[in-house]
């Protein structure tokens, strides 16, 4: 499988009152054509920022891409190339379908406008196609929905509208940033299976960003675990989840409540992700890691192979 999206050593820095602070430090990952790839991590780990950097939507100022390259289908992406591919080859959906849809335009308009701009469709043709797309993402009575406004729809329906708008120009890569976080559990499952189904049908690649490990396990083939602006572990989803090598991944997996256990306390990871300005030297997880010693504070550990196609950034990874 050839790589569709290749991110290499990507760093994003923000200007603050106390100088420039790196919020993303050397992230590398590679998404194959038609593959589903998951990025997990707590809030503040830099997973959304990675997606925004691919889209060319990092708020600038104060942010900027300070290092690294992003390739899409072999082409190195600069700001101009990103602007050209946005909405056509690479589409994105967001966490809050309420605030991500414009309240003062109809659903039909928001799905159809991309078609008019990118494919130069007429008003009539774009509306007809928008209705088709809405029907396709499971919205009943799509023709009537065209003239409705976002506030007239439920959360799940709104996210379906977002998906329809994103898929309008048949992108090769869909970036889904926490697409189910704001939804009810039953709706979450529906949206996830819709995404999986659409992916099978269209053959597009999906980059799914979430803090929900359950979601990742359900829908993706490969995963990258992020912590404090770095990838700490990456590989196929089964070995990463069944035999995690990085202490952070292990701790993360342990903190999922199991339904069949009468555990009184959940083993939560103590502390929280530090802000970029306060990142510790060496391995950034070391202050929260139960196995850390002096060696862990010296240098940032590189990603090393712990098994075939399975890498972890830890100087003493758990053996598989």
């Amino acid at each position: 499988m050839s790589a569709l999206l290749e991110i290499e050593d990507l760093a994003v820095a923000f200007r603050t009152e106390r100088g420039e602070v790196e919020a993303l430090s050397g992230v590398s990952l590679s998404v194959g054509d038609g593959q589903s790839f998951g990025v997990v991590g707590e809030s503040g780990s830099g997973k959304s920022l990675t997606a925004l950097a691919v889209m060319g939507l990092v708020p600038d100022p104060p942010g900027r891409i300070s290092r690294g390259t992003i390739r899409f289908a072999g082409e190195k992406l600069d700001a101009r190339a990103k602007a050209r591919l946005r909405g056509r080859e690479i589409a994105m959906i967001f966490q809050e379908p309420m605030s991500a849809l414009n309240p003062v335009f109809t659903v039909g308009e928001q799905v159809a406008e991309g078609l008019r701009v990118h494919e130069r469709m007429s008003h009539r043709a774009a509306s007809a196609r928008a209705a088709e797309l809405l029907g396709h993402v499971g919205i009943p009575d799509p023709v009537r929905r065209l003239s409705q406004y976002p506030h007239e729809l439920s959360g799940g329906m709104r996210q379906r509208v977002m998906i329809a708008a994103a898929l309008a120009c048949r992108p090769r890569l869909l970036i889904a940033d926490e697409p189910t976080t704001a939804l009810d559990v039953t709706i979450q499952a529906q949206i996830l299976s819709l995404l999986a189904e659409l992916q099978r049908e269209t053959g597009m690649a999906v980059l799914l960003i979430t803090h929900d490990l359950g979601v990742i396990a359900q829908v993706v083939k490969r995963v990258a675990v992020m912590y404090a602006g770095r990838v700490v572990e990456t590989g196929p989803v089964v070995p990463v989840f069944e035999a995690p090598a990085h202490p952070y991944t292990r701790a993360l997996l342990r903190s999922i409540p199991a339904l069949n256990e009468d555990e009184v306390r959940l083993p939560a990871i103590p502390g929280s992700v530090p802000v970029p300005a306060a990142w510790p030297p060496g391995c950034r997880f070391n202050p929260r890691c139960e196995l850390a010693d002096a060696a862990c504070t010296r240098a940032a550990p590189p990603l090393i192979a712990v098994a075939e196609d399975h890498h972890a950034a830890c100087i003493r990874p758990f053996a598989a």
Partner: protein
Amino acid sequence: MFWYAARRIAASVPVLLLVTLISFSMMHLVPGDPAAAIAGSGATNAEIEAIRLQLGLDKPFLVQLATWFGGLLQGDLGRSILLNRPVWQAIVERLPITLPLALFALALTLLIGIPAGVIAALRANTWVDQAVTGLAMLGVSVPSFWLALMLIVLFGVHLEWLPTGGFVPFSEDPAAWARSMVLPSISLALLQIGLLARITRGTMLEVLRQDYVRTARAKGLPGWMVIGKHALKNVMVPVVTVIGISFGLLLSGSIVIETVYGMPGIGRLIANAIFGRDYPVIQGGLLLTGTILVLLNLVVDLLYAVIDPRVRYGR
């Protein structure tokens, strides 16, 4: 939408009634005898009595109220004491001065205020933003009489491009009419431009942070569409309110600008009436101003619903 409009219109009826009631009460809020106050300190008893009879102040309160409302329904606002003619006529005569002035000033306000605010927001915290914000501040704080005088000195006296004042009716000489409007419109508009630019800038900055603007960018829409379509329509909701208030103030006439430029508009009519204790004209002016503001508010409310569909429900 229909029911929303119907509710809004119904809601403005009691406000209009209140406005007329307050205008009517003007006469009775005067301490002591209104007839004596109108006649002035040197008046004889016979003169006071004549005024009392002319204004119907000798009749019971409720009869006076009924007469006032009856007159209103027939478009009769009473007779001016100073001008000795119907109040309505005096107002209508001055509309050809105040109305075009207000329209020109409004046009300037919209054409300059909104783009300036948008540009400042897009270039936030740069010299462009600072220049726009600074000029807007200046526009708001410079006294309009001073500005008017400076414009007269520059364009009227030194450059001699435009008349220093006075009003030429359109029917007499359209070109001279237009020239006579330029400086007063600018003087009137500057404060409004400053206000509108600041409101537009602030609202646009807020809208630019919204998720739907990011979505519009993620869709790959060109920048002018992201700003001019997705952001601007949301910006217009609060901005329309400000425009409504601005236009209301402009239509009520400006005493200062009309005086400096020697334009006999509605502002000066009301000012003269106040100085001459011409109560019927004051009443008429108050009624006119109040009605204009209520109607403009109604228009603003309806525009809200056109711009933002969420407004049509709920309320």
